[in-house]
């Protein structure tokens, strides 16, 4: 189970990782010396499994936020690689630039031709500078819309993967209309005449996430967060103290179970024990299973009905009283 070369271990993961290390050492020792330690190893493995279940069933919202940001978590391209065939990435918004923080392309998932759109983070400093830490500029949203409209023309369902700390807050982004680009996507996605399946695979912050987040079904992987602002941003504004992010995470109800209860998302996709970063292949295979299920269901719905239901779905969101 333990992937070698983990670059980051979260505090609450430490006891698990230490036990795993110990097991690895004992296995090594047994191999070298021929001493039979299998009983001890088995006992420890059981302990690790128990510990893992224990830790991950009691995660706080803030711990989930940390898992969602785990630098070893699979990103959009990691999933695309594992669930699609013949994927072709397409580039550029045709107005200004290509945005490496947003992936867009076409390919197949088994029997379905699909367009796939997703935020893309980098794994190391160099790649993160290139990917702008998964924060899109207006060009990213415009490229996304261009490929979605291509999908509509070719009658292909659209799949999007949300994983962003937010749309990029920069001077150029404002000059080139970050808000307009996101707003237009919201409007056009609401009436795109093909099925749209949204999955939150990591972080979902604000308009930057929603800019590719309007669809017929909203799935969310187990250890993700989705809200109107990051917990740090919320803490800075309402508590006037960034360090209150854990409290903000609690108050904002940003975890998958909370959002399911509030009617914001439709389904939670379970992750491998300990989180998607422990087993990319298993995480991808579950994701694929869910996507195929939704694809099979959605392609049967007539277009007019599909779009009407999509608008109705978002129209119902909100809580108020009327005297």
């Amino acid at each position, binding site marked *: 189970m333990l992937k070698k070369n983990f670059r980051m271990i979260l505090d609450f993961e430490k006891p698990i990782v230490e036990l795993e290390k110990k097991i690895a050492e004992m296995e090594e020792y047994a191999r070298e010396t021929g001493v039979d330690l299998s009983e001890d190893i088995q006992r420890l493995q059981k302990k690790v499994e128990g510990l893992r279940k224990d830790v991950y069933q009691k995660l706080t919202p803030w711990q989930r936020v940390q898992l969602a940001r785990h630098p070893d978590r699979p990103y959009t391209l990691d999933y695309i690689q594992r669930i699609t065939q013949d994927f072709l990435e397409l580039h550029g918004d045709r107005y200004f630039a290509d945005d490496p923080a947003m992936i867009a392309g076409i390919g197949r998932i088994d029997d379905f031709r699909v367009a796939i759109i997703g935020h893309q983070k980098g794994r190391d400093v160099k790649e993160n500078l290139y990917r702008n830490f998964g924060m899109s500029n207006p060009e990213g949203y415009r490229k996304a819309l261009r490929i979605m409209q291509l999908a509509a023309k070719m009658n292909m369902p659209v799949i999007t993967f949300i994983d962003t700390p937010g749309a990029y807050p920069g001077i150029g982004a404002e000059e080139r209309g970050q808000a307009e680009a*996101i*707003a237009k996507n919201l409007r056009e996605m609401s009436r795109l005449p093909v099925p749209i399946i949204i999955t939150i695979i990591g972080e979902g912050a604000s308009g930057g996430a929603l800019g590719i987040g309007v669809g017929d079904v909203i799935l969310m992987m187990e250890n993700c967060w989705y809200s*109107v602002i990051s917990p740090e941003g919320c803490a800075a504004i309402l508590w006037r103290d960034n360090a209150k992010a854990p409290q903000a995470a609690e108050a904002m109800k940003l975890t998958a179970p909370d959002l399911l209860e509030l009617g914001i998302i439709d389904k939670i996709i379970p992750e491998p024990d300990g989180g998607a970063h422990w087993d990319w292949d298993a995480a991808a295979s579950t994701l694929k299973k869910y996507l195929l299920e939704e694809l099979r269901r959605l392609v049967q719905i007539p277009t007019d009905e599909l779009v009407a239901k*999509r608008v109705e779905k978002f129209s119902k*969101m*909100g*809580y*108020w009283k009327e005297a």
Partner: protein
Amino acid sequence: MDWFKRKKGISSGEKKAIPDGLWVKCNKCGEIIYRRELQKRMYVCPKCEYHFRVTSKEYIDYYFDANSFEEFAQNIKPVDPLKFKDKKKYSDRLKEAQKKTGLNDAVVTGDARINGMPIVAAVMDFSFIGGSMGSVVGEKISRAIDRAREKRVPLIIVTASGGARMMEGAISLMQLAKTSAKLAQLSEAGIPYIAILTDPTTGGTTASFAMLGDIHIAEPGALIGFAGQRVIKQTIGQDLPEGFQTAEFVLEHGFVDMIVHRHEMHRTLARLLKILWYAEMPLPANSNNGNGSAEKASLDKATINKLK
């Protein structure tokens, strides 16, 4: 100027929607202005033409025909779906804002007229929790859009908002999608929508209905943008250029059609509505819905005469 500073009852207009006091200091040029005069000038500085922030009540007075505004959906009230609490409870913040403003939430919706021409209006109010958009704002804007579509009259939304309301978490984020989806339907029905962007219009409000108008009009000097300036400064680690995210900046970059002085807004809206919707003129043979359609709301005689 020292004499003025010591004078009683002077207040700066900063942040507050309308400052209290008999005398008001201009945020831009520092001029001390007698409140009565400022009121007469629609809260525009007589010296430098700075547009003060005003509440929904003033915008309704300034932009629409006198006494033409008839409110609807006024009984929609906010709840606290997350039981949200930071330093304060959200439910207490709501109560305080309601008491302070006399409003239920940060938008007022109604039927109104401009030179007799019927419109449906939604006017936001920055004095109610920064004009933030939660469920009630999303629902009332959506109802205004639906009403404009059903009655086949133009829609005008006046924006004054810091963005989505954090205390409703992801629910407030979804109001961006909800209002934008409704605007897609309005657009398909061929009904014009004019967005008037006032100070300030930022965050999720800009990233949804504020940027989806057929016509975008800004008040001079209004702050209009997506990301907050503090956040941008922190991210890029440098100072922001002069005039960044002002109405003039977004005009230069192509995101608003025009900047219109508060004193000219009513007249400009009348001209736009007449050309876009209410003037009776021969149509191109292939025209479908939109201007000139038989399905347009009918005008009374007086209005028709005015248009001729």
